[in-house]
C-alpha cells in the first residue's frame, strides 16, 4: 500500500504524482529510445505504426475523450494533414517548417468546420462528421492537380537537422523522429490538461449547463477543442503519410475514422494512456490474428484459408465486450488492477460501480 502525501499545493497540478511515478515513465522512455537496438527492423516498423496511430488517437481524444464530442470524421483531418505536409514539401519547404505548418493548417480548417458543427450535438455531429469523411474521398479526386487523385502521391525522404530520414532506408532514424514527435505532443497534452483550457474542456464534457454556470464560453471552448484536436490529428496524418510512403484518395477512408474512434474507446476514453493502449491493439491485432491463425491451422488444419473481414469482425467483438463489461477501456481495467494492489487488502467490489442513470430526450428542451 502506497500513499502520496501532499505537502504543497503545486503537487496537485504537477504532471506526475511522485518521484516513483516519474521514474517509471523515465524508464519507459529509456526503453523506447533504446528500442531500435532491442528489436529487429520489422517490429520496429510495427512500433512506429503504433506511435503514429497513437498521435492520431491523441488528437481525437482531445475532442471525444475530453470535450465529449464524438467525431466519426477524423480521417478527413488525417488526410488534410498528410496532403498539406507533402504539398508544402514538394513546394520546396524544409520539413521542419512544413510539418508544423501542416498541423496549423489542419487546426485552422478544423476551427472553420467547428463553427457550423457546433450547432449540432450528439448524434447529429457524429453523422455530419461521418458525411464529411465520406466526402473527403471525392474531394481528393476532384482536386487532382494538387492531390494526385486516384494515382496518389509519394512521400519523399525528409531532412531533419541535416539527417535525411526515409521510412525504408533509415528505419531507426524514422522511429526516433516519430518517437520525438509523440513525446512532444504527449507532454503538450499533459500540460493542456493542467491548464484552465483543458479543465474547461472537461467541464464542458461533464455538463454543458454547469460549465456555462461557471463562466465558461461553451461554444468557444468547443471550437478551440475542435481546432487543437484537428491540429494534432493533422500532425498524425502527416506522419502517417510518411510512414505509408504512398497514399491516394482511398488511404484515408471513412473506415479509418471509425477505427480511430473505436481505438480510443477500447483504450479508454478520457485518458492519455487510452490512446496508446488503443493504438497497441490496432497496431498488433493483424499480427496477432495471423499468428493465431497459423497456430490454429497447425492444430486443426486449414490455417492458410483466408477469411475476409476477419480483422474487422474480431475488432468489433473486442469492442462490444469492452463497451458492455469495461466501458472505461483497457486503461479503466488497469486502474482497477492498480487500485487493488495499492489498497490491498482493502479493495471493495463496488468501488468503481457506475451510478444508475436514466436517459432523457434531447428533442425537448
Amino acid at each position, binding site marked *: 500500500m502506497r500513499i502520496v502525501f501532499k505537502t504543497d499545493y503545486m503537487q496537485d497540478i504537477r504532471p506526475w504524482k511522485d518521484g516513483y511515478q516519474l521514474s517509471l515513465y523515465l524508464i519507459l522512455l529509456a526503453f523506447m529510445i533504446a528500442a531500435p537496438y532491442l528489436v529487429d527492423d520489422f517490429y520496429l516498423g510495427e512500433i512506429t505504426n503504433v506511435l503514429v496511430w497513437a498521435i492520431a488517437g491523441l488528437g481525437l481524444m482531445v475532442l471525444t475523450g475530453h470535450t465529449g464530442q464524438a467525431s466519426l470524421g477524423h480521417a478527413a483531418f488525417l488526410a488534410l494533414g498528410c496532403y498539406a505536409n507533402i504539398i508544402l514539401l514538394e513546394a520546396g519547404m524544409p520539413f521542419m517548417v512544413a510539418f508544423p505548418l501542416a498541423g496549423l493548417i489542419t487546426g485552422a480548417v478544423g476551427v472553420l468546420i467547428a463553427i457550423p458543427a457546433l450547432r449540432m450535438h450528439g448524434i447529429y455531429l457524429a453523422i455530419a462528421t461521418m458525411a464529411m469523411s465520406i466526402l473527403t474521398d471525392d474531394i481528393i479526386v476532384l482536386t487532382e492537380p494538387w492531390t494526385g487523385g486516384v494515382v496518389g502521391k509519394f512521400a519523399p525522404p525528409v531532412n531533419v537537422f541535416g539527417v535525411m530520414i526515409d521510412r525504408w532506408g533509415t528505419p531507426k532514424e524514422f522511429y526516433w523522429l516519430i518517437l520525438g514527435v509523440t513525446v512532444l505532443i504527449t507532454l503538450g497534452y499533459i500540460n493542456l490538461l493542467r491548464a484552465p483550457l483543458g479543465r474547461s474542456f472537461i467541464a464542458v464534457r461533464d455538463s454543458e449547463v454547469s460549465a456555462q454556470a461557471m463562466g465558461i464560453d461553451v461554444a468557444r471552448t468547443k471550437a478551440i477543442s475542435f481546432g487543437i484536436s484537428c491540429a494534432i490529428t493533422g500532425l498524425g496524418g502527416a506522419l502517417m503519410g510518411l510512414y505509408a510512403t504512398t497514399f491516394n484518395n482511398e488511404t484515408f477512408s471513412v473506415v479509418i475514422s471509425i477505427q480511430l474512434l473505436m481505438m480510443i474507446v477500447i483504450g479508454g476514453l478520457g485518458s492519455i494512456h487510452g490512446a496508446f493502449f488503443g493504438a497497441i491493439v490496432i497496431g498488433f491485432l493483424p499480427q496477432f490474428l495471423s499468428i493465431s491463425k497459423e497456430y490454429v491451422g497447425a492444430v486443426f488444419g486449414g490455417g492458410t484459408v483466408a477469411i475476409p*473481414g476477419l480483422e474487422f469482425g474480431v475488432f468489433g467483438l473486442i*469492442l462490444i465486450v469492452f463497451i458492455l463489461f469495461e466501458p472505461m477501456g483497457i486503461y479503466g481495467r488497469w486502474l482497477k488492477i492498480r487500485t487493488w494492489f495499492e489498497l490491498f487488502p482493502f479493495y471493495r467490489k463496488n468501488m468503481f460501480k457506475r451510478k444508475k442513470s436514466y*436517459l432523457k430526450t434531447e428533442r425537448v428542451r
Partner: protein
Amino acid sequence: MEFLQLLISGLANGCVYGLIALGFVLIYKATEAVNFAQGDFMMLGAFITIGLTNAEYMALPFWMALPVSIGIMAVLGYLLDRFVIRRMFGESQTAVVILTIALGFVIRFVAGLIWGHEPQTLENPLAGKDISVGGVVLGMEDVAVIIVTLLLTWSLYEFFNRTKLGLAMQGASQNQLAAYYMGIPVKRVQGLIWALAGAVAGIAGILFAAKGAVDPNTGLLGIKAFAAAVIGGFGSLPGALAGGLIVGVIEPFAARYIAAGYSQVAPYALLLAVLVFRPHGLFSQVRVKKV
C-alpha cells in the same frame, strides 16, 4: 419521358433508403439510441430470405419464406436488445452508437462467413416483369417497393400516434424515469421496438434483394439512409420517408445532369447543407419546453 423514368427509379431506390431510415427512426423515437447497424440488419434480412427461398439453399416457396424471414429478423432484433443493448440501459447515446457500429462489423463478418462475398439476388415471382403506364415502363419490383413502403410508413405512423403502446414508446424515450413512474415497462417496450425495427429491416432487405444483388457490404447503404433520416429530421416517420425519397431522387438526376465525379457527392452535400442550416432536419422534432 426520360424525366419520368428517372423519377420513378429514383423513387423506388428512395423507398429502400426510406425503409432503412424508418428503422433508425423507430429505435430513435422509442429508445433515444441510434442503431448504426440498421443497414447491416437489412443486409442480414436479405440474406436470410435468400437462404430460405433460393434454389441452392433451402428452396422454400417464396410466399412462405417471407413471413418466416421477417419473423426471424424480429426475433433477432429482440434477442439483440435482450442480451446486448439492454445492458446499456440509461447510458449515453454515444456509447450505444459505438456499440452498434461494432455490431455492424460483426454482422458483416458473420454474413460473409455464412453466405460468402459473391453478390446474390433473391429469386422472386416479380422478377423481370414490368407494366407500362402511358409509355413509362415500370418494373414490378419497383411498384411493389413503393406500395409496401407507403403502407408501412402509414401504419407505423398510425401505430405511434393512435395506439397505447405507441404512445408508451414515445413516453419511454422522452424521459425514462418519468415513464417508469407512469407504469410503462420501459425495458420491455424497448425490446418490442427492437423487434419491430428488426422486422422492418427484414422487409427492407427482401425488397432490396428483389431489386438487385446483395453482398455483405450492402449494409453500408445504411450511410445513405442516415442522410435520409437526418434530412427528414430524426424522430419523424414521414420525415424519414420524405428524406429517403429526396436522396433517392437526387441520385439518378445528379448522375444524369451533373458531371461525373460531382454526382455521387450530391446526397452528402445535401445532408451537410441541411445540417448547417436546419440542424434538426426539415421535419424538426425539437421543441422548446414550456414551463
